[in-house]
């Protein structure tokens, strides 16, 4: 039940395999192109502040 700590990657893109960050970078392309990233790893950005998404979603 380990859980990843994504705080250090705030504002970056990360690649995760299970609960482990295997790569990170400033944009999607750099992360997907990283040698440690395999097919099936989840790649996503971290750190956009939350916003209301159906009342005030702009």
């Amino acid at each position, binding site marked *: *039940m380990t*859980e*990843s*700590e*994504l*705080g250090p*990657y*705030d504002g970056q893109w990360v690649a*995760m395999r*299970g*609960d482990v960050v295997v790569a990170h970078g400033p944009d*999607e392309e750099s992360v997907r192109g990283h040698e440690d990233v395999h097919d*099936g*790893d*989840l*790649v*996503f*950005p*971290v*750190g*956009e*502040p*939350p*916003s*209301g*998404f*159906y*009342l*005030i*979603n*702009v």
Partner: protein
Amino acid sequence: MAVNKKVDVAIVGVGWVGGIIAAELTKAGLTVVGLERGHNRNIAQWQPRDELRYAIRYDLFQNASNETWSFRHNLSETALPMRQLGAWLPGTGIGGAGVHWNGQTWRFHPRDFTIKTSTVDRYGASAIPANMAIQDWGITYDELEPYYDKFEYMAGIAGKAGNLKGEKITGGNVFEGPRSREFPVKPPPDTPLMALFRKATTNLGYHPFTGPTANLPVASYKNPDGIVRGQCAYCGFCERFGCEVGAKADPVGTVIPVAMKTGRFKVLEYANAFMIKNDGKNAQSILYFDGLGRIQEQPADIIVLGAFMFNNVRLLLQSKLGTPYDPTTATGVVGRNFCYQTGGGGASGWFSDEEFKRYMGAGALSCAMDDLNADNFDHTGLGFLGGGSITVGQSGARPIQSLSVPPGTPAFGSAWKAAVQKYYKSVVSVGFQGESPAYQMHYCDLDPNYRDIYGNPLLRLTFDWQPNERAMIAYAGTKTLPIMQEMLPNGTVYKSGATPSGDVISGGPGALPAHFDTTAYQSTHITGGAIMGADPDTSVVNNYLQMWDAENVFVVGACNFPQNAGFNPTGTVGALAYRAAEGILKYHKSGGALV
């Protein structure tokens, strides 16, 4: 301690659930008492359009200085109390959150009720991430359909069927489960904004439709109980407000008067329930604090927990009804599968020369598409499960909270003022409202450190965003951006550091914060903790919402959802309330386990 006269049924909470059940039971001749921690109110009491009072100072919501929650992101953290409302806004008072909702009235998809079975069938068991604890509901869409129908006709929901008895109908939601009959009220006409979204999504090959709404778009509607409501004025003050003209269906104007008219329903105001007296197999009464802080007792043959999810779960835990959930072993049931609603991945557009009169609107006035919700699209190779509804809404643009300016605009001063003036009537958002799957480590229990004003433990919440939802939100943003670009073809997608001008678009892969943020409002769609199912080892209640462990206790509401779907929950909560009412009547007549 005073002991009240025993009644057939005592209900905790007088919102949609309590009101529906009270109406159905009293019509059948039962005596019912409702315990409500807040007070009575009616349409005449709403101070119209006071944004400061209702939307900023939270006049209709739970008072967090008396009763709140503690929160942590994982098991290793020490939970801290939420001392102000933030991420969610539970209601209080007669009518509950049903007073201040927007009126979006969805049905969940057939796949949502069989999510685990359907996922394994289509993608294999290995597609479900470790620790994800999705499970089937113990009821199918087809079994719940008559109760959806009953709620929609009671509330006068406006919309257009997209699947009538299996026949797909263009213009409605072609992804929805089969309806037994058409909506009771025709959908509202498109606003120019809705028409623009409809055209853009059609051009992109999607299937747009008008969002189902409880904001009445016709002159009047008379429901099967004889309750008549009038037409929406499109004032734009729905969410966080009571409807000043009664056009938005709410419990105060629909089901509660029906129960009251029978003479068999009594509401105890300022009655804050804290304990269900029970012997481990049956409940005898509800203990509550009255308005003066005195402990009172309400005996009943049948006890219904119909309060907000948090309160139902906390009452069960405090009353030692059912086995508390243990996240380390995934055993026990009360508190398991605490879920939320995953928002993000939207796109916005600031139109330089087109106005949409956003100050006119209604909470559920929207055009939506469901192509990327649930399992309506092939997830093979995407790396995540689930989806969400995509909507453009015209819910109004209140003067304090709706001053949106393009990214890169200064946050104060003349440039900010100029941007507000330029874009107030012409900013548009395409929103995404996603699923929230259950996880083994997301749950509720009683906090060992913090207590409420009465000295009872706070409900402790353990929750954080998980990789599956992060990938889903990133994907959603790649789909909402092209829609916005189709709506605003001359728009420039904003790049960090640029000076915005003309038609501006913001969007792209969506992101969630490094951790769930309790301080910023996101959604009041909170689910789980007393989930329904077919197995007493993994659920609190059966599919009549009757407790497995205590046959005369029914627990009803969004707390029953094993996980949350990509929709607003009220339609499903209403359907479950009608289902529970039927079960209670069966139990009252014959007793015993209903399943």
